[in-house]
């Protein structure tokens, strides 16, 4: 019963966030300068057609309330509308981009976790609390986190080396390392682990039985943080590298005041962000003592 009510509360929160995102997007884009303009108006050959399309859009977007109702009704019918820029259903635009972005995010998160896990392991294995490898790992991750993501991507582009995967992985690995290292350092020096180590318990068993159960809830939170970080970095990275993903689609939609596309992308992002929090906090934390 508790689980059901918790789930209901979370779904309600998600619906509220999505609704607020829709309202916010509509208001911001509808009242952005240039909403009812089209670059083709400047081209004598295509100006007439562009003006006709704008007249239709002006009639459609007369009131924000009407637009909101139309978008919500469309979403409830799983109809994302038609792109203003390309005049094709938004679903057709989003589907291939989504595949590219999800692939990129999953790959970069997986690789980042492997790198962060390895470096945190290396960093924690010295006998002294602050070993040389640990210092080096910390210094590297601090430097990487200090570099803005756009600058990192531009450097890769100028150096003609690496790509979006490298940039996203580096960012996520640096951030994940900071948390994982702290988490492992604390857990590794917990009394029960010290006791187990002193008793000569093998390393795999030590990790499986004594370490992991204790840090699982924190790892869940870290995974959520990874997703949020990756989503935040997605737009600049995809735009700089011209990756045909959701980030670039959103950027182009914003530049062209393509409300249906922008709305679809922001709603998806809102759902992804709120859903990523589902995994954390819904389960009681496992206390290390129970391990």
């Amino acid at each position, binding site marked *: 019963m508790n689980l059901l009510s918790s789930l209901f509360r979370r779904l309600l929160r998600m619906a509220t966030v999505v609704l607020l995102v829709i309202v916010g997007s509509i208001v911001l884009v509808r009242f*952005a*300068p*240039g*909403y*009812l*303009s*089209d*670059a*083709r*108006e*400047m*081209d*004598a*050959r*295509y*100006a*007439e*057609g*562009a*003006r006709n399309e704008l007249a239709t859009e002006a009639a459609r977007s007369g009131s924000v309330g009407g637009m909101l109702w139309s978008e919500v009704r469309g979403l409830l019918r799983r109809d994302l509308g038609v792109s203003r*820029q*390309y*005049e094709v259903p938004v679903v*057709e*635009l989003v589907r*291939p*981009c989504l595949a590219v972005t999800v692939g990129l995010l999953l790959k*970069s998160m997986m*690789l980042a976790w*492997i*790198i962060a*896990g*390895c*470096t945190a*392991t*290396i960093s924690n*294995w010295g006998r002294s609390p602050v070993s040389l490898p640990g210092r080096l790992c910390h210094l590297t991750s601090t430097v990487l986190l200090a570099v803005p993501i756009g600058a990192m991507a531009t450097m890769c*582009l*100028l150096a*003609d*080396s*690496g*790509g979006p*995967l*490298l940039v996203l*992985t*580096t960012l996520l690995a640096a951030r994940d390392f900071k948390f994982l290292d702290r988490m492992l350092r604390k857990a590794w020096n917990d009394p029960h682990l010290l006791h187990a180590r002193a008793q000569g318990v*093998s*390393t*795999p068993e030590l990790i499986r039985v004594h370490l992991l159960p204790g840090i699982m809830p924190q790892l869940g939170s870290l995974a959520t943080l990874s997703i949020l970080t990756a989503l935040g970095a997605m737009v600049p990275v995809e735009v*700089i*590298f*011209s990756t*045909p993903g959701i980030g*670039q*689609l959103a950027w*182009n939609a914003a*530049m*062209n*005041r393509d409300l249906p596309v922008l709305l679809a992308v922001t709603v998806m992002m809102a759902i992804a962000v709120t859903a990523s929090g589902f995994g954390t906090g819904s389960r009681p934390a496992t206390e290390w003592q129970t391990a």
Partner: protein
Amino acid sequence: MHTLHLTKVFAILLCTAVVAQVASPQAAPRLPGELAWTIGYDPKSFDPAKVDEEESEHVRYLTAGVLLRFNRYSQQVETQLAKSWSLSPDRMTITFVLRPGLAFSDGSRLTANDAAWSIRRVLLPATAAPVAEEFVEPAGVTVATPNDHTVVVHLPKPVVGIGKVFDEIAIEPAGRPSEGRITSGPYFVADYHRSQYIRLRRNEHFQGREGDRLALASANSIRLDVLDNAEKEIRLFQREEYDVINGLAPDYYGLLKQKSPSSVRDLGPSLNTEQIWFNQAAASPIPAWEKTWFQSQAFRVAISQTINRADLARVAYEGHATPAYNFISPANVAWYNHSVSTPHFDVAAAKAGLAHAGFRMNAGHLEDAAGHAVAFSILTNSGNAARMKMATLIQQDLAALGIRVTVVALDFPALIERLMHTQDYEACLLGISNADPDPNAAMNLWLSSSPNHQWNPSEKTPATPWEAEIDRAMQQQATSPTEAGRKRAIDRVQQIVADQQPFIYLVYPNALYAVSPKLENVKAAVLNPGVVWNVESLHLQGAR
């Protein structure tokens, strides 16, 4: 302890392997003998009748078979699917005779019926084809097919440059429009991955102008990557991933020239112009005294005389632009008027002109007769480095007259809203891309009643006598039965524009291209699509 050590080694190796994997650069796949270049965005439509933006037009050029082709190099109309064509003495009947043995890319026969159907389709209001407007009265046009290889088009009234209009009408299979999948042109759309690339395959049934089969000369396929990133485009060109860069930016021209001098081409002035103009619209929400300045011929001429165009070309375009004083570029050999007298760079004359018009200097600032300090902002679009540099240089030039100028860069939608809808701006610096050398294509720009008459759009009646004269001259060129008559009218418009300076022309950006040294049969043209206008003859060395 041994296990611990092994785990540590494993962690280091795994970490190294992962970093190496993600750091490897990614390259797009390329088929053997395939030509590749980029387009800036996804074409809105592959339907050749519905083309209403540049990238769709680019794909149409590569895929469409047309009765007549406007040769981008010689700037003459030539036959393509038609073996011959003729225009009646009253210029109202056009007769096309098709080549024998024509076929579509799927192997089906191409007859006069297909050509007639394609022409009728673009004329239908339901199709909403932009090219229909070029027939002036599309509803009155009739198309007949007296036999399998003849098409006769009757016009309700003569249309200037009618031959060129057929360059935009793709001949498709009657009743089977296929959005570029079945074409009568050199290529057809084989594969499209939105936001990634379009792959065009060679149409084995296409006949060149000489009736030769295309297979002997052209590339098997073309890949058009959707990429709006000049930096990345240059990198991939250098890695031989791309064969052509159309419209190379001046700063990248120098970069490429250093590394591979044979890969860059500067064809001299293009047909495009960069210009600045003042808002003269009576209804615009700017102060009345500013309108008075902008409507003053002396003021506009003085500004024109103060702008050092040679500096603009040298600094903003790194020397790859030509100072401009006329709306027709010298590259447009047929229409450029060499004898137009224009106000050239002369700051002293500008100061004298302003003094004569009632402006005066006060503590280093220019003031009008009522004591208002002369200051205005120049709008331009953000993201165009050359325009920003030009605006800054103009700001410095005008400081010599005591005029304070502010440069404002807006993104394109916001800029267009100001120009076309609210008219809330003082001056604007933008460019015009002239895809068609015939000045009739710019009719909408010059007619005072047109919404594209930028300095004062949609005038109910011409606001000034010289605008009325431009209207008359433009109508005259559109109806004149002779080319000489048309030329006289256009020459007159050039002189009026030079005298009145409604647009202060700044530079003609040069046509810059990058072409792979491996590409053969290149004859780059200033007109779009530039290097690839003769795509049916282009191929990579050793790829045949």
